[in-house]
């Protein structure tokens, strides 16, 4: 079990972007990339830089099952962007961040333990906020398009 820590505003969170959520013409994430997952979930998952790197965040994807299946995701189908917490709190409606480490003993196949896991909490159904997410991201692992 890992202690829940406060995430400093200046810290980065790594967020995965599926290849189908990338505009093939511009190689930029689409606004659709920044919705809560699963679709009716309360938050968007991310990994806190204190306990992860862009590459480790991507590698961990390969230990997760595809939704509703027992097939593992392909990490190469995902790319990694980052947000700083302070920028997330500045968009409207503001998003809050919370360290939400995932730990099970024994570890559950398809749901790997993850000390870095953090949640970006807030409504993301609104067109305005999804469009404004595009302003504040940075690529960490970028697609070659």
């Amino acid at each position, binding site marked *: 079990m890992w202690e829940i820590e406060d995430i400093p505003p200046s810290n980065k969170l790594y967020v995965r972007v*599926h290849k*189908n*959520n990338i*505009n093939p*013409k*511009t190689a930029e994430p*689409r*606004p*659709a990339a920044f*919705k809560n*997952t*699963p*679709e009716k979930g309360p938050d968007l998952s991310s990994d806190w830089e204190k306990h992860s790197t862009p590459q480790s965040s991507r590698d961990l994807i390969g230990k997760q099952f*595809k*939704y*509703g*299946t027992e097939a593992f*995701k392909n990490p190469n*189908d995902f790319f990694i962007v980052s947000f700083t917490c302070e920028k997330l709190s500045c968009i409207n409606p503001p998003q809050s961040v919370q360290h939400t480490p995932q730990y099970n003993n024994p570890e559950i196949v398809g749901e790997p333990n993850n000390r870095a896991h953090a949640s970006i909490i807030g409504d993301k*159904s*609104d*067109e*305005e906020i*999804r*469009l404004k997410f*595009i302003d504040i991201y940075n690529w960490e692992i970028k697609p070659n398009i």
Partner: protein
Amino acid sequence: MNEKIADMHIPQIRIDRKKTDLRGNNMYSKTPNIFKSEDYHSRAKQSKIGIFDEKYNGKTKTNYSHIKIGNWEFEYPNAIENIITEIKRSFSLLDMKDSWDDEGAVAVNIDTWIKAAIFLYNYAQYLYVNSKHQNVLIEPDIAPVNDGSIDLTWRTEKARLLINIKPKSLDRVSYYCDLYSDKDFSKGNVSSESINEGFAGWLNFFIKPNVGN
């Protein structure tokens, strides 16, 4: 799939008239070549090239083509071929199965795609007809969203616009548009079955440069 198309009601197209668009252009002067509901099937049988020019523009002879969206055939000026190409390309969204993002996304259904395609066609056609310089709308990125809706996105140096067409409320579409400023923005929803001239004014920020001038 064919059953679903047949069950759809015919889109009701009407014009919500206002005096001017966002740039102050008179919007009364021309009648757009947008199908009224009762015209759909009769217009679908027509293929008279050039009638659009003769009736509404009268300056240049422009060729027209046709596209079939769902059960309906639409006439369009070749100048907006970029929009039509993007609509055709977006048909592939229907090939994407549930969980297309590996995270439980809902697949786009045919009704939502048809609504999005006709919505885009109507506004592209409207802007072309109702502008002095035959404005050609830049093609948007047409993308699926994990709730089964479709996003139309434009981003230029001056402005950005996101339109979302939801499967559960096909008669309205929601949008947000701004000039990268909290002061110059528009947000809300418009009918998917009529032209809102105020909203069309915002689309004038996404016009191809040096076309028809």
